[in-house]
């Protein structure tokens, strides 16, 4: 179990993490969600004793990480996959880690096999792709067969196959009763991975709830209706106190239900060709929630782009 209690980190005038309190429980994957610059990595570094909190504290199973006895058997962490000396081979890197905690030497081969890195073991790390570095980082995190896993943006740089692999991997780890704490700036990634979400923006806690509740609480329902009698239905909806929106030949109505819209149409003897509730995607809900806490807003794109 990981507990953050009033965790705060200030760099000069900038408050990177502000009075953050939450608990990460075992047995489930907990997603740590927030836009870039929200303070996710800083929070993880404070949990691991790498950064010193300005105020508050982070505890792992009730103790500060700096005072634990067998660190690698308690926590496995992947922060930045490039946090390794590139001049060593993958095997030498893992050997040194195993030795530092007196773990059995066979663990090196086991984690290499687990992450599909056996064939790359003898190569120098500096030649690795980001995807291979991520796998090596995960291999290193698993050396101590730890009770708690902390992954910072683990799917960065992975191909779709790798992303699926990580997702299954994290589910399997949680199913074994481990604590899995994983950060991402992509809601879509967390939607399929995490059972519980801790959402932060500009260092502040925005939500701490199950993924299911988060989706329900944050995806505003839109009722979409298509009719040949557009003007009449708009007028009827207005009369009923609703605010219909004309979009591409159909009408969107916020804050109502399909039942109510259908009843209004029937009462006014209007034809309806299509009537359904559309939930905004989780990505939209997340963007809505964090809109005010995004550090750097992109200027409105004038050229269409995927981002």
């Amino acid at each position, binding site marked *: 179990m990981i507990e953050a209690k009033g965790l705060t980190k200030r760099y000069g005038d900038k408050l990177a993490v502000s009075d953050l309190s939450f608990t990460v429980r075992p047995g489930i994957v907990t997603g740590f969600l927030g836009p870039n610059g929200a303070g996710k990595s800083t929070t993880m570094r404070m949990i691991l004793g790498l950064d010193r909190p300005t105020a508050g504290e982070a505890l792992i199973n009730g103790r500060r990480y700096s005072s634990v006895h067998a660190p690698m058997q308690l926590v496995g962490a992947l922060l930045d996959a*490039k946090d390794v*000396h590139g001049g060593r081979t993958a095997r030498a890197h893992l050997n040194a880690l195993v030795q530092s905690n007196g773990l059995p030497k066979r663990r090196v081969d086991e984690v290499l096999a*687990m992450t599909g890195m056996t064939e790359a073991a003898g190569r120098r790390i500096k030649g690795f792709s980001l995807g291979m570095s991520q796998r090596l980082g995960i291999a290193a995190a698993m050396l101590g067969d730890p009770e708690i896993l902390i992954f910072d943006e683990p799917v960065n740089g992975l191909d779709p196959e790798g992303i699926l692999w990580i997702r299954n991997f994290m589910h399997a780890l949680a199913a074994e009763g481990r604590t899995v704490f994983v950060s991402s700036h992509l809601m879509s990634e967390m939607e399929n991975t995490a059972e519980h979400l801790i959402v932060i923006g500009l260092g502040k806690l925005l939500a701490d709830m199950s993924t299911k509740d988060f989706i329900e609480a944050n995806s505003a329902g839109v009722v979409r209706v298509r009719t040949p009698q557009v003007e009449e239905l708009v007028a009827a909806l207005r009369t009923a106190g609703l605010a219909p929106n004309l979009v591409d030949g159909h009408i969107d109505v916020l804050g109502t239900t399909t039942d109510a819209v259908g009843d209004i149409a029937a009462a006014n003897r209007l034809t309806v060709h299509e009537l359904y509730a559309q939930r905004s995607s989780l990505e939209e809900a997340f963007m809505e929630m964090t809109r005010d806490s995004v550090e750097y807003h992109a200027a409105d794109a004038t050229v269409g782009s995927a981002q």
Partner: protein
Amino acid sequence: MTTATTVATPRAASFPASGATLPRVIRSEWTKFWSLRSTWWTLLIAFVVTVGFATLIAWGASSNLDKMSPQEKATLDVTNLATAGVAFGQLAMAVLGALIIASEYSTGGIRTTLVAVPNRLRVLLAKVLVFGVVAAVVAVVASFVSFFVAMTFWSPHHLAASLSTPAVLRSVIGAGLIAVLSGLLGVALGTLIRHTAGAITSAVALLFVIPPLTGLLPGSWGKAISIRFTTNAGQRIAEVIHTPGQLYPWAGFFWMLGECVIPLLIGAWLMKRRDA
């Protein structure tokens, strides 16, 4: 690279709880030290440069013997000349010392290290011990090899020094020890500065560039500082014949030791406090 699509996690409570104790961290640092090519290269360079310059100096000085005045001959310190190459090997040791810690900060590897071993002072101590022992062995061996090679040039002139003379033995071992101290100053600067280039540059400045310049400092204070400044003090231990106005061998050695240990202690204190 093969991709595992099914996940098999050997959930092995199968090995006992094991802590990151000092002997284990030393083993780990030993593996890390030798698994980098830069280590082998730097040690090789340290050895070759030390012995190479010693040979060159002995050869040059012994062939110019007949041009020397009787007074020069009387104060000729063949042992000190034999180990003069250490001054250059020292440079390689300082670089290696700086690299052993600064490269971890430069690459970010320090975070991986400190997650595995949260006790930072234990990590630094293990690094110092591993580096110190290796540096001492390489530097002292290089110093002895330099001595024996140089003596082959002096023997024909019946000027060869002998290790059975205590001052000569102390001088040859001492020359190696100065290289170790230079390396430790490199470790200290690496810990303080945390950037490879910055740490190496300041080590070179403090050990090679500034010491001769301190001779320009005016007055008795200037002189007092100059004779105690890093290598100005340290190199006295390699002298058999004392240079007037300079510190005596062991006094010089301990001055330089202090000048390396104090920054190392400050570095350790900062390492414990700073964000990694």
